[in-house]
């Protein structure tokens, strides 16, 4: 479980805190989407969860370990796996299987167990056939799946994906999200998806919306979609179909907000 109390973080020289008075409890085995515009504080929150940043005030407790207690950093890495927007920044090896094994080597694991673990993790992300490839020659989608495999290798209880699908094509992105969803269920992983893409919250049990460093919404994805008119206030866009129907309405056409599929929109326009 990850718990924060009165959590605040301010970057040096910044006029205001990046996150302010965050009080949340994230239960084990859940998938939580943290949604917000650029600069809303969501990546800062992810780094605070992972112990990469220390709070300016308040606390983050991950599985009973306070990230402000020293030395927390090393312990955190085994609790929390993190995958970032640019997978290239995380790649250190020239062979895919060595990349996944890299973190394990630091855990003093024996060779046979390590081999088995690498195979399992590559299988989980559907990349076993690329185990001997050069990570730098993989596509962005494959690199991101490799990032997830490497993060899973240390067997963390929490996996944080910080805009991890930003560089992927739509289909790969949605496939990756459903793969993550299956992984979360199969491994009882707690997954935190940091995103600004509305369609990625569908896999989550819970959505937390951050705006200017504060929690402005904390409920289910369905509850979020019923408050669609709030989204622009948080610098989030409507899902594409709702954006289109809003434009049609402002052009004088009669399309009810309840039309949620292309067929329903067409029926409203051409009964």
């Amino acid at each position: 479980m990850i718990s924060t109390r009165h959590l605040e973080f301010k970057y040096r020289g910044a006029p205001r805190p990046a996150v302010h008075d965050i009080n949340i409890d994230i239960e084990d085995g859940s998938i939580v989407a943290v949604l917000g515009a650029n600069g809303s504080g969501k990546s800062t929150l992810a780094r605070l969860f992972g112990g990469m940043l220390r709070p300016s005030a308040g606390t983050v407790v991950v599985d009973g370990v306070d990230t402000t207690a020293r030395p927390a950093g090393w312990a955190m890495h085994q609790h929390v796996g993190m995958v970032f927007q640019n997978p290239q920044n995380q790649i250190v090896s020239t062979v895919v299987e060595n990349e996944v094994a890299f973190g394990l080597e630091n855990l003093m694991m024996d060779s046979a167990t390590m081999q088995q673990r690498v195979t399992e993790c590559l299988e989980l992300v559907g990349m076993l056939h690329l185990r001997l490839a050069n990570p730098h020659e993989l596509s962005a989608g494959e690199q991101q799946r490799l990032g997830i495999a490497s993060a899973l290798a240390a067997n963390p209880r929490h996996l944080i994906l910080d805009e991890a699908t930003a560089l992927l094509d739509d289909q790969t992105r949605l496939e990756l999200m459903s793969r993550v969803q299956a992984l979360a269920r199969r491994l009882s992983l707690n997954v935190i998806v940091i995103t600004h893409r509305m369609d990625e919250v569908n896999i989550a049990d819970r959505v937390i919306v951050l705006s200017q460093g504060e929690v402005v919404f904390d409920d289910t994805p369905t509850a979020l979609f019923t408050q669609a008119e709030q989204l622009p206030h948080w610098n989030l866009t409507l899902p594409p179909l709702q954006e289109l129907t809003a434009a049609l309405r402002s052009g004088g056409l009669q399309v009810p907000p309840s039309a949620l599929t292309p067929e329903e929109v067409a029926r409203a326009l051409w009964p």
Partner: protein
Amino acid sequence: MALKLISVSARYPIDEAHIVLTKVSITVRDSGCLAVVGPSGSGKSTLGRIMNGLHRPSEGTVELDNLDIHSMPSIAEARRRVGLLMQQPDNQLFGMTVGEDIRFGPSQAGIDLDTCVSRMERAMLQVGLDIDSFAARSPFSLSGGERRRVALAGLLAMQPRHLVLDEPVAGLDPAGRAKIEAVIAETGRHIGVVLLTADLPLALRLADHVILLDAGHVEYDGAPAGAVADRALLSRLRLLAPVEADVLDALRQRGAPLEPLEDMRPATVLETIAAAVLAPDSRKVATKGRSH
């Protein structure tokens, strides 16, 4: 006068058996926006690097104004004329300040300081970065969207004839994306822009010509509206059609008399739908047709 790729093939330097592009021929006009759309791994980024001379194709030629860029006295000249915005703007930012970063290219090209400064100011204006607020800041203190606009300004300051943009809005929030899209639309009015992306809806919002690329092969080369006609192809290419195309299809299935579309820009789609639904004549004809 154009940038032309003629039957270009590319392989990975380390793994010769791995073919990235197979006999791709593309003409980039001197204005407008050409979108090359394909899934991750389809060869888009390699194509971008070939267009700008960073990567030499294993077969075929790249011509700028009918001259093979690899037989030019200096490949730097081709790179000046064809700007490349990389997928990760951080890879091409290195100035201590935003202003210094944007001036760097022109100053290296031997342009005098006053001209460099005026080019920097113009480029910042083009990408919507306020000179007083941004010129003295470190590029690395900016948000992802701002950094991408700095990188774009650095390219525009070189006054290129063509601009190749590799996933220019990936990872940006709606506000950041809208700003970059506006810059692309405006830039395409003056120079030839190539948009490399896996985001088909984005391509259809901006492009006047679309190429669909799959595993290094051109699968479609034509008008934007035609790019969404073959849904089986889109599915094989792992591309999502924009909702506009789905709504148009659903309207056609209901018998709405929709004019064929030249492009799939939202304004065009909205106008076409409004014309069909609101025009009393077309509706009467359609209603009559349906009542029989």
